[in-house]
């Protein structure tokens, strides 16, 4: 029993960067745009957030800079795919490669510098509850923010008019265009939002998860986030579930090993990807199950003239 609390704490930290990045990507995809550059946007958020906290010592500035860094990368992507009609898949891949290279260049002088990590915020009253208080109410601001964003995005997509329009653009850009909605503008905003969230996910890595800068420190989490969106079939609640499940699998396998339980660690490492493949198989075997959620125009370029 005494193991459960610490294990839960670690699961929460493992899940938070995935949650940010996947929520952002989900909104982008809901508008009909597939941005494979999550990894590149995350790593830019990680390095620039770290640079900002190093020079200003202000968490607020660092987080804003991370959001801006992710959004700036996203803006580049948006410009290419929306304005110049570049194909989304290669542009996204290029964004990832570009982000990894640029962050390494910017971060050259940041290697070997330590940072204490984001301060923990204990919520009054709640944090003094036994067990629950320790596990759930003593985290840094980003953990709380990631959970709040699940509800905000759920509410926005399902309960607001703006969310309805965003989904309409993602489902049929031609119809949305015919009704007079500014498809390109809406998509651009959704891309920017996705970039900002990926930037925050990256900032969580370099400021809280393992507060340091090393090249390529996102180590593939952007790709897990992309898989997570599909795994969650584009629903915020399931993104939350999936992020904690993927994070949980990683942590539990480490605990299992330390306890001497003989699970091959390689199998546990591949489980998140296996789960995603299974979901993809289910989707393609019975499209009807998913069709209501998947944005119908996902990845299709939009030409207003047609």
């Amino acid at each position, binding site marked *: 029993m005494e193991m459960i609390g610490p294990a839960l704490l670690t699961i929460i930290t493992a899940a938070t960067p995935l949650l940010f990045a996947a929520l952002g990507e989900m909104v982008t995809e809901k508008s009909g745009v597939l941005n494979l550059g999550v990894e590149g946007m995350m790593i830019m958020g990680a390095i620039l957030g770290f640079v900002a906290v190093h020079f200003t010592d202000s968490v607020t500035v660092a987080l804003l800079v991370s959001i801006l860094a992710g959004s700036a990368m996203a803006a580049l992507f948006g410009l290419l795919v929306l304005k110049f009609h570049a194909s989304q898949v290669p542009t996204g891949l290029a964004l990832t490669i570009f982000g990894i290279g640029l962050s390494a260049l910017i971060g050259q002088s940041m290697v070997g510098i330590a940072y204490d990590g984001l301060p923990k915020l204990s919520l009054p009253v709640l944090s003094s509850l036994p067990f629950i208080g320790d596990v759930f109410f003593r985290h840094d601001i980003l953990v709380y923010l990631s959970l709040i964003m699940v509800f905000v995005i759920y509410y926005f997509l399902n309960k607001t008019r703006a969310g309805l329009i965003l989904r309409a653009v993602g489902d049929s850009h031609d119809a949305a265009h015919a009704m007079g909605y500014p498809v390109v503008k809406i998509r651009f905003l959704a891309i920017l939002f996705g970039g900002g969230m990926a930037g925050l996910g990256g900032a969580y890595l370099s400021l809280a998860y393992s507060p340091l800068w090393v090249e390529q420190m996102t180590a593939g*989490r952007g790709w897990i986030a992309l898989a997570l969106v599909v795994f969650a079939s584009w629903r915020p609640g399931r993104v939350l579930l999936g992020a904690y499940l993927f994070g949980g699998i990683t942590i539990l396998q480490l605990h299992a090993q330390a306890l001497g339980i003989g699970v091959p*660690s390689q199998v546990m490492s591949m489980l998140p990807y296996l789960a995603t493949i299974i979901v993809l198989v289910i989707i393609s075997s019975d499209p009807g199950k998913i069709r209501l959620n998947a944005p119908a125009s996902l990845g299709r370029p939009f030409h207003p003239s047609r």
Partner: protein
Amino acid sequence: MFKKTLISLILAAGLAFGASASAETKVGFVYVGPIGDHGWSYQHDQGRLAVEKELGVKTSYVENVPEGADAERVIRQLASSGHNLIFTTSFGFMNPTVKVAKQFPNVKFEHATGYKRADNVATYAARFYEGRAIIGTIAGKMTKTNVVGYIASFPIPEVIRGINSFTLAMKKVNPEAKIKVVWVNTWFDPGKESDAAKALIDQGCDILTQHTDSPAPLQVAESRGVYAFGQASDMKAFAPNAQLTSIVDNWNDYYVAQTKAVMDGTWKSMDTWGGLKDKMVEMAPYGDAVPADVRAMADAVKNGILDGSFHPFQGPIKNQQGELVVKEGEVLSDKELVGMNWYVEGVEGSIPK
């Protein structure tokens, strides 16, 4: 990626002027990771800088080279652009190095951690297990909970040898102490390494050691108030209180010596496996937390290895099944050490297959 392209361009330019530049010595380096990893590739690059500084020769490097077909292309580019000596610094570069070496008999190659040699291909590696015996001694003396955590990367002989050496040394000074090994299946993922560190601490480990490359586990140790050992480079900046010492890779002297040998025309193909004695493996200064008597014991192990009176793998050694593998008075040969694929008695769990 940018840098790689840039270097390719420089190499291409070098190719054009190759004939005129052939008189002077040029040394090339191929790294598997980014030089900013603050670990393995970083230390190799420190060696490259030492060569530049001490001998004033030109060097170039290519970082982030994947261990596959790309490696062969990169090595060939270096060989064909006037480099006289090329260091390839990861196990997976072995076959590409040997292949390219056949086509460039006048260029000397040095491959790290491999076992295939040729007239113009030498191999070199470091006996990190000697350092593991020292930190194992410190861990055995300093653990209060008698549980020590070991973050391991991949189940290859190099890593298994380290676990065994550490365990033997720890058990010698503290038979009660136990070791918990967690495999993370990566050389480099700060997030996952810190997760593993947290999991081990949560299970009662009060000392951590790692065979992965990022300083993240040390940061976790620092924030949780336990002790840890650094890896590949001195990581004290990340854990001023938690780092007890660190096993530091030092390629500087070797790289300078080999470059000098090429310049003098005395270079020969050989296999170098250097340790503490050759200063290829060094220990960072002890942390403040290490008490005087423990320092003395650790120094005794170190001096024993230095003067040859002690070997980390001297008998009697039993394997996990309790069978005597090395008799009293004998030591494991280098050949057996190179291919080590079994745990010594006292390590729990099994090696992932």
